[in-house]
């Protein structure tokens, strides 16, 4: 089908520029920019991870071990900000950059220069944010949610606020680009309801990003003026309310949570059909479930605030609205399992991570349902149970999906196979130690251990030590991942086929491996049977 798209003239003057600065800093190529995003994300993953190691080392035993409490609080705050805005979101944008044009038969992103700007803002934003660690007075230490009045005591608040503004600008431009690409650049015949689920998930995620990142910008702008210009948005003496910040923040914050999981749903929906050698079960239901989750994400924000003193009617509304999300999410889990049902499955590394995602994300989903119950949440709120919950959905959810996708498409990107043996070593180490790390935190939370504290009651000692051991080993396991990726990119001798996986369908597998610098310069002629979702039952 798409052979015409990839013939010879991508070498020579159409190929990648040889000048390093020109190639990587002035790029308009979706693959190079995607690579930049992914490398940046990996770097941030290890920086954020090293912060987590400090946290787990301090919590290894009760009593003050290694660091000062203020530094500990800086670590919890920056671990979250780095992982959310630096690791998970750029990884999804990087995957979207690389794969969306390949999946819909487009030559590039719709607005390639803006694409480059979206990326290059990020290193500067994180330099600004992390530089606060070295400033007199230290970095932000009031938690990543930056609740006033605590956050207003941060000396370096202006740096953090401006860093968040920059990240917001980057995300909004990235999202606009993705929407324009999907709506305007599809090859003829790639109807909306034939697109891969990953592309659908990004289309909906991009809408969420454009809708809520400006709201975050507004919230932190009000923090800035409250601290430096004497406004009273969050000051009750002047008629404001600290809880107002929480409302505005979580109006951003809850859709943000789904910004970090919907593309993961899309990735898993690509990987499972490939290795089950069956089309995805209930394609349209999957698309509509993502859309329903996105809609519901706008009307559940106050479930983060049940313990703050909301009117009763609000508590009940947000409790029921939150529980509604279990319905479309249940549809998705059901469909992933049904896709595997009766398939001829093989268990390469991407599939292992995808299956682990389905199981462990579901655990995180169930603990989320427990937290959605207002009376129960009064007990769980701000405890380690919450920490366990959101690490199950973000680490074994979002991060596992990103790792699965990396293994899945790495041969397409590099033209070489990664080491399946070391991939599996990485998987089993990750999946075992991540549970040793986070499962005991459920018990700690139910027993009453609060989050964001450097010291704790001796009653919590054993589970904390187990959790820390799991944390160190999970952290170390990710060095295996780094090794596998570096080996695959620079040293692997094993050539990858164009269609890397036997059961893989979709346009990205019709171009050579490695994908040439320019692809689909002529729109491919699309045959439905080549697509992952070409024959959708009505």
């Amino acid at each position, binding site marked *: 089908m798409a052979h015409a798209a990839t013939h010879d003239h991508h070498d020579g003057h159409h190929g990648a520029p040889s000048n390093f600065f020109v190639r990587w800093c002035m790029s308009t190529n979706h693959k190079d920019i995607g690579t930049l995003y992914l490398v940046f994300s990996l770097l941030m993953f290890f920086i954020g991870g090293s912060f987590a190691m400090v946290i787990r080392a301090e919590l290894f035993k009760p009593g003050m071990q290694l660091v000062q409490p203020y530094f500990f609080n800086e670590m919890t705050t920056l671990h979250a900000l780095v992982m959310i805005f630096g690791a998970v979101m750029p990884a999804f944008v990087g995957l979207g950059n690389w794969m969306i044009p390949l999946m819909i038969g487009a030559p590039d992103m719709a607005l390639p220069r*803006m694409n480059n700007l979206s990326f290059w803002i990020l290193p500067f934003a994180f330099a*600004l944010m992390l530089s606060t660690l070295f400033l007199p007075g230290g970095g932000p230490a009031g938690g990543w949610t930056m609740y006033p009045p605590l956050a207003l005591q941060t000396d370096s608040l202006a*740096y953090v606020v*401006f860093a968040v503004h920059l990240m917001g600008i980057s995300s909004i431009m990235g*999202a606009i680009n993705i929407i324009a690409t999907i709506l305007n650049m599809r090859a003829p015949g790639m109807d909306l309801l034939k697109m891969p689920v990953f592309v659908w998930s990004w289309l909906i995620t991009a809408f969420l990003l454009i809708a809520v990142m400006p*709201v975050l910008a507004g919230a932190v702008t009000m923090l800035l003026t409250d601290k430096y210009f*004497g406004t009273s948005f969050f*000051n009750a003496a002047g008629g404001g309310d600290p809880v107002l910040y929480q409302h505005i923040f979580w109006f951003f914050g809850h859709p943000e949570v789904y910004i970090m999981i919907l593309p993961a749903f899309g990735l898993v929906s690509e990987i499972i059909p490939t290795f089950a050698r069956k089309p995805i079960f209930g394609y349209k239901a999957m698309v509509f479930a993502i859309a329903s989750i996105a809609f519901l994400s706008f009307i559940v924000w106050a479930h983060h605030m049940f313990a703050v003193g909301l009117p009763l009617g609000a508590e009940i509304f947000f409790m029921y609205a939150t529980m509604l999300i279990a319905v479309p999410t249940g549809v998705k889990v059901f469909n992933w399992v049904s896709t595997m049902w009766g398939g001829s499955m093989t268990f390469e590394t991407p599939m292992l991570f995808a299956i682990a995602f389905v199981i462990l994300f579901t655990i995180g989903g169930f603990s989320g349902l427990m937290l959605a119950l207002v009376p129960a949440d009064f007990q769980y709120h701000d405890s380690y149970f919450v920490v366990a919950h959101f690490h199950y959905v973000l680490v074994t959810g979002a991060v596992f999906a990103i790792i699965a996708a990396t293994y899945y498409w790495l041969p397409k990107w590099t033209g070489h196979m990664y080491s399946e043996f070391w991939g599996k070593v990485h998987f089993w180490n990750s999946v075992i130690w991540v549970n040793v790390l986070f499962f005991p935190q459920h018990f700690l939370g139910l027993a009453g251990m609060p989050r964001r504290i450097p010291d704790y009651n001796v009653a919590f000692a054993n589970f904390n030590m187990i959790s820390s051991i799991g944390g160190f080993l999970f952290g170390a396991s990710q060095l295996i991942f780094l090794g596998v990726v570096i080996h695959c990119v620079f040293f692997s001798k094993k050539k990858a086929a164009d269609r890397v996986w036997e059961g893989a369908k979709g346009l990205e597998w019709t171009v050579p491996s490695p994908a040439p610098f320019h692809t689909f310069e002529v729109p491919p002629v699309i045959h439905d049977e080549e697509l992952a979702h070409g024959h959708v039952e009505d």
Partner: protein
Amino acid sequence: MGQQQGAYFVPSKSQWPIVAAVVMFVTVYGAAHWLNAEPGESGFGKTVLLIGALGILAMFFGWFRSVIKESLAGNYNDQVDRSFRMGMMWFIFSEVMFFGAFFGALWYARSYSVPWLGGEGHGVLTHQFLWSQYSAAWGATGGNGPEHVGGDFQTIAPWGLPLLNTLILLSSSVTITIAHHALKAGHRGKVLLFLGLTVLLGATFLWFQAHEYIEAYKELNLTLQSGVYGSTFFMLTGFHGMHVTLGTIMLAVIWLRVLKGHFNKDHHFGFEAVAWYWHFVDVVWLGLFMFVYIL
């Protein structure tokens, strides 16, 4: 220049994105350093901020110049045009959501936080223990909270300057639409006249707005520090004023581009993007007039 690749246009390498990232960083670094300086300390923040802001201006000039050159060379096909249109529409949507955060703060303060501080609903205990003297009201009698942050103040009457400003902005929407129709009909003189009128109306709006701010600070003691009333008043009208300023500059640039003959009746996305943006600031003003001034 971009290159035509097969059936598509893919723009060539450009230094402007990385320049933009650098100057944005310089600007906010300067601003943060300035805000964070100890009182009385003379830091380099202001200087860095100024350099960054000039850099942003230069970047916009350079980036748009290269885009205009490509556009005049006829590089942009219908597909590129559609991408630009989508980009502008979604950018305006993001701006709507940005204003939404501040409107949300206004409605929350008026409907919840101020009445609760006055003892309504579930705020009854806060009221009794902390501020039992406070009787909740919006506007001059209670809008700066139970501790009268910023001191007594008076509000701006809606039916004077604000009404005039509303009429000015509404008229400017009409003039820009006339200009757009004239452009599509190919009457360049009429375009220049009505677009020029729009620029003048925008500038007049800003002049009156500045006048209103001076009156608020000098005579009414209504300042940014006047409790949550002053905070919401100045943040909403201030951000709107910044957008009108930006919009007026954009309109002026478009006027010059019309003068240089950059647009024809089929190909004038730059004009339309600015017109959309102008209608957007107009609609935001209607919301402001309603919720900040009248109600």
